[in-house]
């Protein structure tokens, strides 16, 4: 089956920032993303778990599949939002079906 080269970007970010991130991505020309819930994690700012939260706390994972040539614009946009916050950004080489969607 015909596949097309793409990048898979995964951004783990604080839930209160979610909408700001997706807005920034959309402005950077990203045509789609998927948001996954996160149960807990650990990093430089310590351990946390969704159970230990009240209100709109915790983190989410935003996954973006994009054409390689759009990667830089996406990373710039994401970085502007993530910069001062806790969270991580990772990129993987991927392939996608139905390239017209990206």
């Amino acid at each position: 089956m015909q596949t097309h080269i793409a990048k898979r970007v995964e951004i783990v970010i604080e839930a209160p920032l979610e909408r700001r991130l997706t807005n920034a991505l959309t402005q950077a020309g990203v045509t789609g993303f998927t948001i996954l819930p996160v149960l807990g994690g650990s990093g430089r700012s310590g351990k946390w778990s969704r159970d230990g939260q009240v209100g709109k706390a915790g983190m989410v994972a935003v996954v973006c599949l994009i054409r390689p040539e759009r990667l830089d614009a996406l990373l710039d946009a994401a970085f502007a939002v993530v910069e001062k916050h806790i969270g991580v950004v990772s990129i993987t080489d991927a392939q996608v079906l139905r390239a017209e969607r990206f």
Partner: protein
Amino acid sequence: MTEIFALAGTNLVSPIILSFALGLLAALARSDLTIPEAVAKGMSIYLLFAIGFKGGVAVSAHGVDTTLLLSIGAGLVLSFGLPLIAFALLRMMTGLSQTDAAAVAAHYGSISIVTFVAATSMLEGRMIAAEGYMVAVAAVMEAPAILSALWLVARSGKQGRMEPELMREILLNGSIVLLVGAFAIGAITGEKGLAEISAFIVSPFKGVLCLFLLDMGLIAGRGLRQSKGVLGIGAVAFAIVMPLVGATIGLGLGMLIGLSLGGIVLLMVLSASASYIAVPAAMRVALPEANPSIYLTLSLGVTFPFNLTLGIPIYLAAAQFAAGA
């Protein structure tokens, strides 16, 4: 003094407080007891809806008096003003950075609705009436403190972000909308509306509050465990001194505007309590450099249990003393 302890004693052996203690102990002992996030959120929606609705019905029954506007005004003044006092205290008592101090200050200007609900329950148990619109005062006190804190940071040259978008988010955050909305529904439908749904929002209220406080205990306990060593003794002292300071100011304002005994106690509780829902989320956006485990631990791990156990009885005793004097 003995009276306060007697009061605190009866207060302490209520199922509500003991449920909180159970959660706290379970978390400190690292039990895997947890209340699912969705259930906890469902309970908090229930509590906000019920407390708002009952407040609205009370206003529709007893009518609006001039004290209402004064109380709303007092709430605004307190929420804008208390962060300034908190900030000054924090800079004196602790080594927190300006940003951290401002973030903590925002929490103490805002309110904890669960503390308010627990105080209401306690007053009801003692048959002390309070103005129904204190719920509305609670609602107006949620947000202004955030502005004061951001102003404190901006003044010191550090940038704190207050985009209009954030402003909208804060004012329309779920708790405020639900509280105010349920208040309006209660005020519109009145006693008749209450009769229709009282088997849901009145009778089981205290029981739900128990389970909710069990969860708050679990969360507070886990927070305390994880933040061991983060807080100095000065910060912990602040988290006990500040409620007392806030309550004193609330007492003064409450007497000034002529609230009933119950109303005064509730205004004291609002002043004394610290937010741990709306404000933390706003701080993550507006002051991301501030350390969340500092403000969450102080507000939820120290001030909340203090108010729940000793604070509320102290405020009641003080109000009774002042009213009697």
